[in-house]
């Protein structure tokens, strides 16, 4: 099965305030947007398993106008807190790139 980074045009992550992280998946076009919006690999359960967060707290937004899927969740460690390795959460998306898209 193809990986997320073999389908999407561009993926990024960023802190959204000190307590949240948000991942933007720029799908590229409507076909890939439709394919990615359905995949279990981007479900709250899958995100929760990768990042160690409660799936019930994972938010998902689909922006069809620009073919973007957005996933937001509380950071496991608040920005700048003990053990935080990525203050701006700028590299958190990388763990998602190898997700296999069914």
């Amino acid at each position, binding site marked *: 099965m193809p990986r997320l980074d073999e389908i999407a045009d561009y993926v990024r992550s960023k802190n959204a305030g000190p307590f949240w992280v948000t991942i*933007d998946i720029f799908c590229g076009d409507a076909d890939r947007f439709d394919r990615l919006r359905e995949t279990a690999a981007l479900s709250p359960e899958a995100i929760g398993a990768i990042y160690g967060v409660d799936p019930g707290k994972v938010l998902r937004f689909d*922006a069809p106008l620009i073919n973007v899927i957005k996933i937001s969740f509380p950071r496991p460690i608040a920005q700048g807190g003990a053990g935080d390795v990525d203050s701006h959460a700028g590299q958190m998306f990388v763990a998602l790139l190898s997700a296999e898209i069914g």
Partner: protein
Amino acid sequence: MVASQVSRGRVCRVLVPSGVLGSGCPEEAMARGERLSPDCIAVDGGSTDSGPYYLGAGRSKMTRPATKRDLRQLMLARDRLGVPLLVGSCGTSGTDAGVDWMAEIAAEIAAEEGLTARVALVYSELSAEALRAPLAAGTITPLAPAGPLDAATLGSCDHIVGLLGYEPLAKAIGEGADIVLSGRTTDTAVLAAVPLMRGLPAGPSWHAAKTAECGGLCTTHSRRGGVMLSIDDHGFDIEPLHIDNQCTPFSVSAHLLYENADPFRLKEPGVTLDATSATYRALDERCVRVEGSVAEPNGYTMKLEGAGPAGFRTMVFSAIADPRVLARIGIWLANVELHLRGGIREVLGVADDAYRLELRPYGWNALDPRPAPAPPPPLEVGLMTLVTADTQELATEIAKYCNPVLLHFPLDPNDPLPSFAFPFSPAEVELGAQYEFRLNHVIALDDPLTLARFRWLNLGAEAPDAAA
């Protein structure tokens, strides 16, 4: 004629020179912005974006020279145009000291340039003491994912600020301020204040402000300066200040994604902006028209930010390139950590819960939240050993104990003594006091002005009241 000058009836133009004061706006971009006849100049001076240190320590992230350079450019433009200048979140975190720091810089510039201006300083730092009564009354509530607040947490913060909405800024301008320097303020409120006080509708005003809050990030060339917002009764136009830059429907709509958890519904003091039905249309190759966003009134709340001390850190950075060690780096790291923790307990006599030790193998899996990756092994690993303790002295003492272990720890006990790469002497780097964000709460207010404090300055020695 640029598209934003097409008549749309009532229009309020906001010149946004950059995403943060001190990051710079090219002169040619600023000059073009001035020619577009803005009704105000508005810029954000801070954020929590760079972490808890700036609020905890009450220090500015941007340097004084860079801040002064930008403020001089804006004060001179303001003086030529005769319009208000607003700077929010002064000194990065918007503490009282940050506002005073900015006021001091403004006074220096006024003296150097012979400018006169009436300046409103709007403060929003709060004491834990002042928040105890509202806490007891139940008007302070958590935002996800925080839990309820208690008095001990409030008391543990070195600085607490409330995020001002647009109302205190509008009040200051209504009372004759040429320049408003405010404490912690929502980025958007700084940009939306003048349009809102002139009666332009909330939906377009807040949406325009949200789009421009990071200056040129909503354009195709974010380093060519900021943007001009033209807000009217039906929507807003946005264009880059620089002639060689573009706003496109994609660049403008995509900006609502940036560092927002929810790209469609954005909470501001007293309102929720709903951009779900917004439309984005290119007016020409560099200007975009946005319509259809609405603002729903909510009960008025002010967000609180607070940061408190979280110990002191000392770091040792070492590096490994030996392929034999790197082939079994996970095992080596586990053995190093075990040895270090035992030695800290037995040799130094420091209890396990009196310090925090982290080994971060950069090049291996320092950033990956998942278990260690499968082979192939990395070519090099930069190993950050990070010690946190209640005092700098203890953190460094522990780091000094780690030093020879990190230098010589063998993969197998029988190996002839190996040595790894240390880039510095001394190897220990003291990182100073650490802070953490402690508040993620809002306080309900009957009146948006309740927790804002005002002070007025007349800049320009010869005519102290001339600009009032």
